[in-house]
């Protein structure tokens, strides 16, 4: 593989591989490191590959499981924030989660901040309202709108993927 071919694989798959690894490791920095290592190995080893995408997913999975083992974790299966999911499911979701991640990126900054304080950091509406000097209704309203627009985005994406 030429270096420009590897570069285009990197551009295309880096994010979704990170999200895939995140289902195993639940740590964004570790996930990025693992995926980075896979690409470094690809550049050094320059193996014969017929299906680059499957190859990359495989090598990310192997490295994730090695890391979990070395940390003496019981769990070897991927999960989301509610329960275990299958490896196949994690692969499938990672592609869509990239799109959701980008949709969050493009939310209006203030609205995104309120959304994250609530959904990621677990603050209540009343706590956010106090912190930001807004009314609780405004907070609720903004978060509601943010979630609605992300859902709408996701719906478009789902119908697109399932039409193929």
């Amino acid at each position, binding site marked *: 593989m030429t270096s420009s071919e590897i570069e*285009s694989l*990197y*551009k295309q798959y*880096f*994010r979704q591989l*990170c*999200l895939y690894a*995140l*289902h195993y490791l*639940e740590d*964004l920095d570790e996930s*990025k490191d693992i995926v980075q290592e896979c690409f470094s190995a690809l550049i050094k080893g320059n193996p014969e590959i017929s299906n680059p995408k499957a190859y990359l997913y495989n090598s990310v999975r192997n490295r994730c499981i090695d890391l979990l083992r070395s940390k003496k974790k019981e769990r070897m299966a991927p999960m*989301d*924030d*509610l329960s275990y999911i299958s490896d196949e499911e994690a692969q499938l*979701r990672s592609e*869509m*989660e990239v799109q*959701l*991640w*980008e949709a*969050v*990126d*493009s*939310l*209006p*900054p*203030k*609205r*995104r901040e309120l*959304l*994250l304080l609530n*959904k*990621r950091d677990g603050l209540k509406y009343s706590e956010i*309202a106090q912190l930001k000097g807004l*009314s*609780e*209704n*405004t907070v609720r*309203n903004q978060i509601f*709108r943010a*979630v*609605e*627009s*992300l*859902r*709408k985005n*996701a*719906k478009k994406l*789902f119908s697109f993927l399932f039409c193929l």
Partner: protein
Amino acid sequence: MQENMDRMLGFVLKHYRQGAFDDVKKTESKNVRRFPVWKYAAAVTAAAAAVILFVFLLRPGPSVSEYLAANSPIQVELPDGSSVTLSPGARISYSDSKAGRDVEMEGTALFKVARDESRPFRVDAGESAVEVLGTVFQVKQSDGDVFVDVLEGKVLFSGSEDGVVLTPGMESVLQKGAASPEIIDNPFPNPIAWVTGVFKYESTPLKTVLGELSDYFGKEFTASSDAGGRSLTGSFSTEDPESIAEAISAALEIRVTVK
């Protein structure tokens, strides 16, 4: 499917960190990050607006009129017979030619447009455009979002990509950075209370009423816990939030507080 979608969203939000993938540049143009582009766009728009105004002022032909409301709402008659009510701090600039009528605006304004089929009336607010022939509608800018409410007639409201057609009672928002407007489900019933001075409700869910009042006064209206699922009919003056809370409390036999 809905459940899966929400789980994916939950997962993404739990781990989300802004700029985590900024070091990975994508090649497709649709994935170009929006924020910097908007910053430039705003600067360019501002520059363009200044230039256009300058050109109009120097050349004979289309005339430009500017209006600005200071501390209280004002109503102005435009040269074409339309009227505009401007909320405090709002500004419009109106220009008119054989091809059409153009308004650029900031803030919140209620338009009553004189019908003229040959010359569409167009309002530019931020990155959105509203186009009509003759109607009553309101445009409100808030934190980069643009809200449009229609009271009479039909309005075409568009962003940089798609548009929506709005009819009376409908409200739509073009969010900052979005390419197309979205229609808002169950909008507040009195979008122009600042002009009429009255909130009117007819079997309106109490939740919606309190939401609208909180939004309008920038204070928080809350009801005691026994108020769940109630609805309200009546009219209230916009003058005093405290007396509205008292009136609702008395009518529904609950306790509504304002903070």
